[in-house]
């Protein structure tokens, strides 16, 4: 294998990664959401969404409707939550939302930050769930939660690059 070939291989790899990155960021701009595709991590919306399902988000609605399934982030908690809007109160400037998981017994008040009694549409939401693909996201859960799978996969990738040049 000569240098030229190696550089070509490196460039191809760089091309794959950068185009994936550009596609992701473009989707982010189109949907106005910093995380336009999310994987469900908890069972609080079962049976609608199970762990590993993929959700497509849209964040250009001016207002949410009651019944919308939204993804929100609470300050100081890193994991985004996918729950349904139970109540909405709005005036011309601002909209307040109370959410609840379909599979939970009570609303999300205990999940919000201290002293916070509503979500603020503008500040807290990452997006509204518009579309749905089952199960495919499970691979990311396996990668992030199962070390054997993670290193097994890394090992496979490494081996394949050694053997199939």
């Amino acid at each position, binding site marked *: 294998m000569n240098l030229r070939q190696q550089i070509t291989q490196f460039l191809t790899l760089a091309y794959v990664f950068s185009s994936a990155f550009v596609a992701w960021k473009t989707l982010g701009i189109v949907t106005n959401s910093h995380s336009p595709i999310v994987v469900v991590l908890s069972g609080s919306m079962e*049976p*609608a969404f199970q762990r590993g399902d993929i959700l497509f988000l849209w964040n250009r609605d001016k207002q949410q*409707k*009651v*019944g*919308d*399934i939204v993804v929100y982030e609470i300050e100081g908690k890193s994991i985004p939550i996918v729950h*349904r809007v*139970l*109540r*909405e*109160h*709005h*005036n*011309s400037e601002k909209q*307040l939302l109370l959410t609840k998981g*379909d599979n939970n017994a*009570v*609303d999300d*008040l205990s999940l919000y930050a201290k002293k916070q*009694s*509503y979500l603020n549409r503008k500040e807290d939401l990452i997006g509204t*769930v*518009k*579309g*749905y*693909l*089952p199960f495919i996201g499970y691979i990311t859960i396996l990668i992030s939660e199962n070390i054997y799978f993670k290193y097994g996969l890394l090992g496979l990738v490494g081996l*394949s690059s050694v053997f*199939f040049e």
Partner: protein
Amino acid sequence: MFNLVTRVQTAGNQALTASMVVTGFVILLTLLQLAQDNVWGISTTSITNIQPTSSIKRSSQYGSVNRKPKENSKIQFDLDADLTPLFNWNTKQVFVYLTAEYPGKSEGSSNKVTYWDKIIKSKDEAKLHYVNQRSKYSVWDVEKSFRGRNATVRLEWNIQPHVGPLIYGSTETTGNFQFLRNE
């Protein structure tokens, strides 16, 4: 250059393209089917005999801040609805919810709250018949009380498909009630 990696890559790409085309077809057919079944025009629903009750709460679980009194509202209602048209081959579940909409204080402000909801998993459960059904939630407003405002009640639904977009709608019938004056 027909080594294993390129073969896997080509097969993977083809599988991806094929599944995207199939998904597209599924979504299109689902929407066509729903339009044909006229799911956005279900008019046989009745929401009657709505009786509001009210109580004053001082717990933060019921919307009270710093133990200040907060009016909570519940209702009882009679409901008849046939949601079987919402079930077809791409319906995983239907989430059905009873909402009340009422005006706010200022111009352009409005509120909508859920009193009752239900997850329907199969066509057999899609005929709803309730008499004197109690609301599931104790509802409070952003204001201290509901001030005897008028509310419009609707039965709304959300279809969760096996694959594709979430679909929303409401039945055509509405009900009305006035919150108790509790000041």
